[in-house]
């Protein structure tokens, strides 16, 4: 079994590599994209830019996880009293999910600083991250909501029968169970955000991709993009593997519990 899969992998990769290397344009491609000299030259700038990507990711993710939870909780409140709050949450999610992320970044990042309102930040970085938070909060709220709905109705009823208010029931009974159910989905949205932070480069924010672009504009060499790609992969692949591993663990545990 292992022998066959190893063999087939070696053959497959071998053929692919041979096809690329033997093509007529390969020497030019290698110089343009995989030049060791250019790599050395561009690496420090791309790396420091990528560090900004990581910082944006961490700040945005923390804000998203908190804001999305509030939106999801608001949406799952019941009863006529909470109608306005519920409606607000629905409108927010629908509206934001309908706007392309890139458009949101452009509109907020260029639009708001241009208005020049006193007291409002003018930094492109600030508005870029804000756009990411606004957009991802809508998607993440839907993940949380699916989690809250996956908790059996009898749990809500039990909590309420003990005299807990709706907010207390959510806080102490429904949300803790909901979060457990959706950790794999949340992790997978982490991977997606971790890459999408690079989109703020359109605002001129000097993160990893922007640094590679600047280098490319100066030298007409694309190796910087490859450097940035490697850095993004170095972070996203471990997270993706961890997500898979964790998801399987949760599934296994649930099966063990139900048997």
């Amino acid at each position, binding site marked *: 079994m292992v022998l066959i899969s190893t063999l087939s992998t070696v053959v497959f990769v071998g053929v692919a590599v041979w096809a690329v290397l033997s093509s007529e344009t390969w020497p030019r491609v290698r110089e343009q994209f995989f030049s060791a000299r250019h790599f050395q030259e561009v690496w420090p700038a791309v790396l420091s830019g990528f560090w900004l990507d990581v910082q944006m990711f961490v700040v945005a993710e923390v804000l998203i996880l908190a804001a999305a939870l509030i939106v999801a909780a608001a949406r799952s409140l019941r009863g006529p009293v909470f109608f306005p709050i519920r409606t607000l949450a629905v409108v927010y999610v629908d509206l934001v999910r309908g706007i392309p992320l890139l458009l949101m970044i452009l509109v907020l990042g260029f639009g708001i600083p241009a208005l020049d309102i006193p007291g409002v930040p003018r930094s492109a970085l600030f508005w870029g991250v804000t756009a990411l938070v606004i957009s991802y909060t809508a998607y993440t709220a839907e993940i949380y909501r699916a989690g809250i709905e996956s908790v059996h109705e009898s749990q809500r009823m*039990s909590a309420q029968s*003990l*005299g807990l208010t709706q907010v207390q029931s959510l806080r102490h009974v429904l949300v803790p169970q909901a979060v457990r159910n959706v950790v794999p989905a949340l992790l997978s949205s982490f991977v997606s955000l971790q890459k999408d932070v690079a989109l703020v480069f359109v605002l001129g924010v000097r993160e990893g991709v922007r640094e590679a672009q600047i280098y490319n504009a100066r030298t007409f060499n694309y190796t910087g993009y490859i450097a940035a790609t490697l850095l993004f992969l170095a972070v996203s692949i471990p997270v993706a593997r961890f997500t898979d591993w964790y998801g399987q663990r949760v599934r296994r545990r649930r099966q063990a519990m139900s048997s």
Partner: protein
Amino acid sequence: MTEPHSRLRIVGLSKTFGDLPVLADVNLELRAHEVVCLIGASGSGKSTLLKAVNLLVPIDQGEIFLDYLAITSPEVDANQVRSRMGIVFQSFNLFPHLTILDNITLAPRKVLKLDRAAAEGRAVELLGRFDLLDKVKDYPDRLSGGQQQRVAIIRSLAMQPELMLLDEVTSALDPVLVGEVLECIRELKGQGMTMLIATHEMGFARNTADRVAFLHGGTVWEQGKPQRVLGEPERPETQDFLGRIIQAGRL
């Protein structure tokens, strides 16, 4: 002698789901310390009646009084009312992410605003009384069904309710585990707890209830002393229901 204190009074209670009538003009009264068993076929409205009393389902018509307070009037705070009575369901519904201790102390701490030490003291005392003290740090999935159901009862008791509502609490249990839960309920009766109990356990109803009420078509068809209702039922529907129970070997 003064008239005994009326703990729960249900007057003209009606409820439909869509156009399906579930409860139709239910009238029932429980005096303090009284134990009333609700019997009747599945779908006769027992479960809905209990949930209506706990304000978990809205009602269409009628009134419910808890200690002379009309709890069905709109200005009453439902959460406050619910905290004064305990309800236990067929399917236990313990909170799986909390330990037994936290399951029991959650509502006393958050609703009654007891501090942790007081809430835990009360929980430990109850667990000790019902012989579950060794489970205090366990999670619900480590317990048997009977133990989980007893914890669910303790969780309600920790709120020091004036009234307990039990909704077929032994129906989801292995037959060998039914006894320990029924024993637990008898002990509550011994302590003077007022209880309204929906049950299929006719033997239990006969020797524990002060009164049995037979629900049929969403209304109280016949009620009285258990020996009388279960032994010499007056109405043909009651006779028919009990006849089928006997056939099934449950009486």
